């Protein structure tokens, strides 16, 4: 396929980019790892379409005549010429676009603690995603914990679907949350959203300066121990939904050689990454929520099709969303005590079962990889990389193809072509 624009990721940023690029007359191909569009925040909403904002975007997106490849993951990529190698459950896909928009979103940040590998301990958005995909949660006792406004949204969602949400434990201090609440007043739409969540969560304790320090159970989760200051107590539960905020999915950008800004893909005002004809929009450029993702996607869609005037017209909207994101990220900064959660025998790398004790002897992520196999399993450090970045301040930026475990046929054909180009 040789489209004008290829977009990786069909969450809000990717959908918005596709809509604007198509409006500019471009032929667009969208690749997404999930069975349907919407990304994580709008997962499963293609059918239900709850919420007016999502409904409108889905409606416009569905009317596009661009090709959407679902259940399609990018395995490898090259920059000159721009080329993506991807696979669907049945096919190997090669795409040589004129421009590439990365809208790969974010994943949840998981921090290791004793018992976190027990079945029943999941991410916060993770449990919500599972519930949206048919996991029955009515009547289940659930502890929601970690950090960020997502905990409130998840708690409200679970409760509205009949779960007994025992409590929401937020690691940030009451003071930090109060400062953030003041900021909400300047954003009427956000304030209304927050008030709605509060109403939906009536009767659920929202404890700040509070976290889960251990999970217990015999082959599956039975209870968690909560800490708040010097006080600890145990809560029985069927599921624990725990995540410490979001972390950008930047693997594809790193493979292409895009310049980074911390853990995020660095972009200019037109959402251009440091590589020619590569754009990036949404959470992978910095965690900022759905409004920022949408406007960044729109800007990238216009910019990638030469409509810079229309892109410029959206800068003010992006600025407002960015200001909100900054307040949010500083309010929910992670407290250093969380670095002491793992014990010596706590697994940090869940693919290779590498313990905290073994990692403490390493001096860098690379050294840890070489000596312990940390980060060398199927998830390719997507879980332990961000965790060790927080625990040990390591960076794990070396990304190599395949980005995901791939079928042999996909790789073999790729190899042959590489050899052909070489000869």
């Amino acid at each position: 396929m040789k489209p004008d624009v290829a977009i990786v990721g069909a969450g809000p940023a990717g959908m918005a980019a596709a809509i604007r690029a198509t409006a500019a007359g471009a032929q667009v191909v969208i690749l997404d790892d999930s069975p349907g569009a919407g990304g994580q925040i709008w997962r499963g909403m293609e059918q239900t379409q709850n919420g007016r904002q999502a409904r409108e975007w889905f409606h416009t997106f569905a009317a596009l005549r661009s090709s959407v490849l679902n259940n399609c993951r990018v395995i490898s990529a090259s920059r000159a010429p721009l080329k993506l190698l991807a696979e669907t459950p049945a096919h190997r896909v090669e795409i040589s676009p004129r421009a590439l928009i990365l809208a790969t979103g974010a994943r949840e940040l998981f921090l290791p603690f004793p018992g976190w590998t027990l079945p029943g301990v999941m991410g916060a958005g993770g449990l919500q995603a599972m519930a949206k995909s048919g996991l029955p949660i009515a009547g289940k006792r659930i502890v929601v914990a970690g950090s960020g406004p997502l905990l409130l949204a998840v708690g409200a969602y679970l409760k509205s679907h009949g779960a007994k949400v025992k409590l929401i434990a937020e690691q940030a201090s009451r003071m930090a949350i109060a400062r953030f609440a003041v900021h909400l007043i300047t954003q009427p739409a956000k304030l209304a959203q927050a008030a709605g969540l509060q109403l939906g969560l009536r009767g659920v304790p929202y404890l700040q300066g509070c976290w889960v320090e251990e999970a217990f159970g015999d082959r599956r989760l039975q209870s968690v121990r909560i800490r708040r200051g010097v006080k600890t107590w145990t809560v029985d539960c069927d599921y624990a939904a725990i995540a410490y905020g979001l972390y950008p999915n930047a693997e594809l950008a790193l493979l292409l050689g895009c310049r980074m800004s911390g853990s995020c893909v660095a972009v200019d005002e037109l959402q251009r990454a440091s590589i020619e004809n590569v754009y990036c929009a949404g959470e992978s450029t910095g965690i900022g929520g759905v409004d920022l993702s949408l406007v960044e996607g729109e800007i990238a869609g216009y910019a990638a099709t030469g409509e810079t005037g229309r892109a410029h017209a959206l800068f003010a909207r992006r600025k407002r969303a960015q200001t909100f994101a900054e307040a949010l990220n500083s309010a929910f900064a992670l407290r250093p005590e969380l670095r002491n959660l793992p014990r010596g025998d706590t697994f940090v790398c869940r693919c290779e079962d590498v313990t905290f004790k073994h990692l403490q002897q390493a001096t860098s992520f690379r050294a840890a990889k070489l000596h312990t196999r940390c980060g060398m399993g199927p998830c390719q450090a997507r879980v332990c990389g961000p965790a060790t970045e927080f625990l040990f301040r390591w960076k794990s930026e070396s990304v190599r193809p395949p980005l995901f475990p791939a079928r042999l046929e996909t790789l073999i054909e790729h190899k042959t072509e590489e050899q052909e180009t070489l000869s």
Partner: protein
Amino acid sequence: MPEQIEIRIDGKPLAVAAGTSVAAAIFLAGESCFRTSVTGEPRAALCGMGICFECRVTIDGVPHCRSCQILAQPGMEISTSR
């Protein structure tokens, strides 16, 4: 009532609503161990969005399928690696 789909998990038949992910179906079957880790621990879905690979199972003979990203289809044969 959404359309029901018949699948098999570790040989046992199960009916799930159309649109149910394989991971959700495995929990529905009362199973909480999707795979056994390299040191022998039971593991189940963690991220729910195709990142962590903890929910991988064998589907119709194909190993290492991320069950959270795959929707149940009629006649699917799923095996966990308990």
